């Protein structure tokens, strides 16, 4: 099957000033490549500072890579840091839904903004689309007029999901989106994500440090250490016979 998302030798480094003239560069991603088939989940794990979140940002277009390509359905989306701005189909969900939504906008306005800036739909179509998306994530149509503070944490995560889904993405990047939730809310959210994946063939890039969840949800796993891919393979294989030191350490902790 053709992969929906393909990443080829992604490199990224940050430079920081040190003194007056000296600059230090810190490479956060080194030669990262992977492929993701539709309807599959790729889990990315690693310790703090291993470049997980940077990778998520680069994938979603919030940050640029120095070199390397990102291909979506065989078409180049980003090549050596130049992004094709027509692409809005890789969406990111953040860690804390209570802090990542604008408190001054109603849910309807927020979702409408996404559509207004990215699609050519008329007002009526947009309204319809918002209602459909809300019902897809298990919210009601009347929630359009609600403000974020009127929701509980679990519902807010659904709103964040609706915000990601409204542009019909092919790939969803979940950056620690499940770790801050309570266990029963997390179970509900995971169920919703799995249901959506089964129904529409969405592909997920799951970034988390919750290993049992990784084992349950993901098909493939990518272990990062200091920006380098140290292990990449099917989840069950990696969990049963971890080859890299990083993975062994994570499993024993």
């Amino acid at each position, binding site marked *: 099957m053709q992969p929906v998302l393909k990443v080829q030798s992604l490199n990224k480094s940050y430079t920081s000033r040190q003194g007056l003239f000296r600059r230090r560069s810190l490479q956060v991603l080194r030669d990262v490549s992977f492929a993701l088939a539709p309807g599959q989940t790729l889990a990315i794990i690693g*310790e*703090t500072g291993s470049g997980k979140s940077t990778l998520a940002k680069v994938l979603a277009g919030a940050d640029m890579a120095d070199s390397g390509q990102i291909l979506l359905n065989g078409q180049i989306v980003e090549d050596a840091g130049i992004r094709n701005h027509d692409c809005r189909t890789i969406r990111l969900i953040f860690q804390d839904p209570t802090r990542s939504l604008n408190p001054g906008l109603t849910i309807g306005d927020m979702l409408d903004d996404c559509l207004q800036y990215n699609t050519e739909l008329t007002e009526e179509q947009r309204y319809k689309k918002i209602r459909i998306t809300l019902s897809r994530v298990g919210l009601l149509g009347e929630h359009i007029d609600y403000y974020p503070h009127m929701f*509980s*944490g*679990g*519902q807010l995560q659904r709103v964040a999901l609706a915000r990601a889904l409204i542009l019909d993405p092919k790939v969803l990047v979940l950056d620690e989106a499940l770790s*801050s939730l*309570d*266990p*029963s*809310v*997390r*179970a*509900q959210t*995971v*169920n919703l994500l*799995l*249901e959506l*994946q089964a129904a529409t063939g969405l592909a997920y890039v799951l970034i988390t*440090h919750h*290993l*049992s*969840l990784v*084992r*349950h*949800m993901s098909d493939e796993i990518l272990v990062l250490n200091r920006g380098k891919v140290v292990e990449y393979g099917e989840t069950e294989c990696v969990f049963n016979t971890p080859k890299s030191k990083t993975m062994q*350490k*994570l499993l024993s*902790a």
Partner: protein
Amino acid sequence: MQLLDIKNLTIELRTEDGVIRAVDKVNLSLKEGEVHALVGESGSGKSLIAKAIVGVLNQRWTVTADRMHWRGVDLMRLSSEKRRKLVSQDIAMIYQEPSRSLDPTATIFDQVAESIPDSVLKGGFFGRRKARKEKVRALLHKAGIRDDKKICSSYPHELSEGMCQKIMIAMAIARSPKLLIADEPTTALESTARAQVFRLLKALNQLKNMSILMISHELEEISDWSHAMHVLYCGQMVEAGPTQAIFKQPLHPYTQALVKSLPDFGQGLGHKEAFYALKGTIPPLQHLPIGCRLGPRCPQAQKECVVTPRQSRSHGHSYACHFPLIKVKQKCNPS
């Protein structure tokens, strides 16, 4: 010996639309050297209970309890000065979000040194100063911080969250308390730092015989080393008992849902299969249902559930449910 014994602890908040009962008749008892876990979702009143024990809740909250005994002394009847003296001697607490609970304007050395009581230091004026320095170093080492010189001279914002957490632990064990209350000590940490903190707490419990009351919303990480568990839902204690018993045979529908929502314990759950989850969401404090607060979400709620269920006990395993799960099972197969 019973270290902490609480009966019918109720914490209320008076608002314009009436009284909100955030914690409703919670019982809790803790023996010396035991590790207890207080589990529940956010907003279930876990932190409130911890703060009520230490006595740091602010004036708006009214705390009432039939009994709140600390080694035989009723804390509720003490004057606030006496209570503070007693609590500061024997109980220490680690708060949520360590980087926010440390003083941003003081160096780590000053903050740790402040928590050391004068009574443990010996020597004259200059000797004390030296002893204090030594003690700070020893405490930091004990908490698993190797690079003490650098840490001592830095400010909280310069350190990582895991480091701040270790410093909080070092400050908490300065008085070698009998009871350590740890309020979500690992939520901000990633897995390796988390494992370190747990190892440290476990060592303190085993070597110093210190009791620990762990507050957490992650069941799986405390399940293997806590002796007993108390499960809270919306301020009501739904189930309490030995950890093993609770995991093996949960009696309350909510506990069952919690246990089943863990990927590790979901027996025979296939890859990518849906978890067992209760329908609906946690009600906000202003709209709590009457009677059993799980009522509207409970899969086996019946008419009787509008009355608050009484706590029943068997073999040290107590639960508050009109229709505990084990009875349901007996009805299904009479043999």
